[in-house]
């Protein structure tokens, strides 16, 4: 009711307080950007022609430098030094952001372009038994199953251990917290091939679970560190509230801290999985590779998407190389889905914490 009357008052005196446009970009600003970009572009083209020079990254760098300089000079003409510097910083940050996004788009686009050719339903559902170097046919189902099983087992074992470690490090803060944190940090720098060699030395026999063991080792530091950061975001006031109600510490962790951090911990797990699913070297040493479907992770060599891509890209054959790119595209898509999932879950958790 009040809102309605408020609106009618505003309608009666339309010009009294129309909102001022304070956000949209003015014509001058756009002109400055366009002029700077055109000047930079011409400079680069001229340089390339005069010097007969074809480097892509050099061109981009020169373009950026000229663009920033010209833009700063243009802005400086019409405003103070402080404001011009401010604009320069803004432009610089935007440029860096655009470059990063461009690199990502380039990687994904390149893979998609090359991998799209052999992407089909049968590529997902058939194994490579019928795949010949000369004819179409066959798929990567054995690699999909292998990847999912290996990473699944790794996550099943590694994620609970990682979260428990994070709980020990941040909630219990026991005597061993410092050495354990040191070891976890060291583990984060462990070359993946070393993890593979370690497992291969212990079990010199190919099996999916051995790959899972190696991947689990590699996931552990990622998930532990991320989980610890997540636990850090749970406010101490909640722990105090729970303690003041007469809860022993294990119940505080189980009933209050972990449920509050649930979505964040899930994100941590997905980050670890995304890291593990792309590993090639340790998988090659522990599960090797095969063109035949092997659903049993406990016995015999097992394929996975990275090893499939590796095996097919190293041969001088166009058809097999195309298949490798398709597998790479599939891998990229799986990781992308995992990340989007992690972000979505994280956002939902944040919303609940805000109470909406």
């Amino acid at each position, binding site marked *: 009711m009040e809102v309605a009357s408020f609106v009618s008052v505003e309608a009666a005196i339309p010009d009294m307080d129309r909102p001022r446009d304070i956000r949209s970009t003015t014509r001058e600003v756009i002109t400055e950007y366009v002029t700077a970009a055109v000047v930079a572009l011409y400079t680069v083209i001229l340089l390339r022609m005069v010097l007969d020079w074809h480097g892509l990254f050099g061109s981009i760098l020169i373009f950026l430098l000229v663009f920033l300089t010209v833009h700063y000079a243009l802005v400086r003409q019409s405003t103070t030094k402080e404001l011009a510097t401010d604009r320069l910083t803004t432009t610089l940050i935007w440029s860096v952001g655009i470059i990063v996004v461009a690199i990502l788009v380039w990687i994904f686009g390149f893979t998609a372009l090359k991998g799209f050719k052999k992407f089909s339903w049968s590529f997902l559902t058939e194994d490579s038994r019928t795949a010949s170097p000369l004819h179409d046919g066959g798929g990567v189902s054995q690699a999909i199953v292998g990847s999912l099983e290996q990473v699944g087992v790794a996550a099943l074992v590694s994620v609970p251990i990682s979260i428990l470690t994070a709980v020990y490090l941040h909630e219990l803060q026991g005597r061993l917290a410092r050495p354990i944190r040191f070891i976890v940090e060291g583990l984060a720098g462990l070359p993946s091939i070393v993890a593979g060699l370690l497992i291969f030395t212990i079990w010199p026999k190919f099996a999916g679970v051995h790959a899972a063991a190696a991947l689990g080792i590699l996931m552990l530091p990622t998930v532990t560190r991320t989980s610890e950061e997540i636990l850090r975001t749970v406010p101490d006031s909640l722990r105090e509230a729970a303690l003041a*109600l007469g*809860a022993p510490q294990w119940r505080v962790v189980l009933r209050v801290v972990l449920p509050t951090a*649930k979505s964040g911990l899930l994100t941590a797990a997905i980050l670890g999985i995304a890291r593990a699913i792309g590993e090639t070297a340790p998988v090659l040493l522990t599960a090797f590779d095969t063109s035949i479907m092997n659903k049993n992770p406990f016995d015999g060599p097992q394929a996975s998407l990275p090893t499939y891509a590796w095996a097919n890209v190293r041969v001088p054959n166009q058809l097999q190389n195309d298949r490798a790119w398709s597998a790479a595209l599939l891998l990229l898509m799986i990781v992308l889905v995992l990340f989007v999932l992690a972000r979505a879950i994280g956002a939902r958790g944040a919303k609940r914490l805000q*109470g909406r």
Partner: protein
Amino acid sequence: MWDISSPTQELPEQEVPHQTRPNLGSGTPASLIATDVSAWFGSRKVLQRCSLRMEARQVTALIGPSGCGKSTFLRILNRMHEVIRVAKVAGSVELDGVDIYGRDLSVTQVRMRIGMVFQKPNPFPAMSIAENVLAGLKLSGTRASDKESLVEECLTRAGLWTEVKDRLNEGGMSLSGGQQQRLCIARSLAVRPQVLLMDEPCSALDPISTRVVEETIQAIADDVTIVIVTHNMQQAQRVSQECAFFLVEDQRSPGRIVESGPTAKLFSDPDDDRTLAYVTGRFG
């Protein structure tokens, strides 16, 4: 309180295994007597030999300027002080004659019998309103026979029932600040404490919410002994019968109780000049 419907629980009262347990959750107000309480954070002494009687069915207010150790004293009363790693304590606190730092009570038993409401409302974000009320039972491993009526009873006592009865399954964080604080009071009441400690419960609230919380305090004062820390001297006068004035001489020295007694006397005719200066607003 106890789940008497299950056959294993049908024991006569005297056969309950732990001697200290029958009292737990009975919810009869108890007196708290602090004797020569001193406290340290590391090597820094923050409280010097504070003694205070907090009678059953009374509201005792702890007043004094910031940093004088009121909150530390309050946290010592339900053993929350020792949550901080470097914290140390001396002296004794007796709950109906039993030393809460002694062997007869565990830390968790002490905290169940002596509840606490904090300065900033802190409902559990991962729980609904109803779950928040019942959180204390879950967290202390106590089984309740009739959860729904317990939720209603505690929310009613905290003066929140009519506002939330239609949305008990919504998140605790969806409430306003004042409502959240009353939810925290309801949560504390659900474990049926004998004493309720309140650490500046209204300092994060607007005047209207403050009034509602104060009404809640007065309403529950018959069933539970209340000790409240407050910066607001009008509030101390409105809600408390007994009062203790804390003060630090200078920045280095620990806080002490300068004077304690009936609130009316402390505010109208205190024995100590410093108390008079503080309650009349000449400093602090």
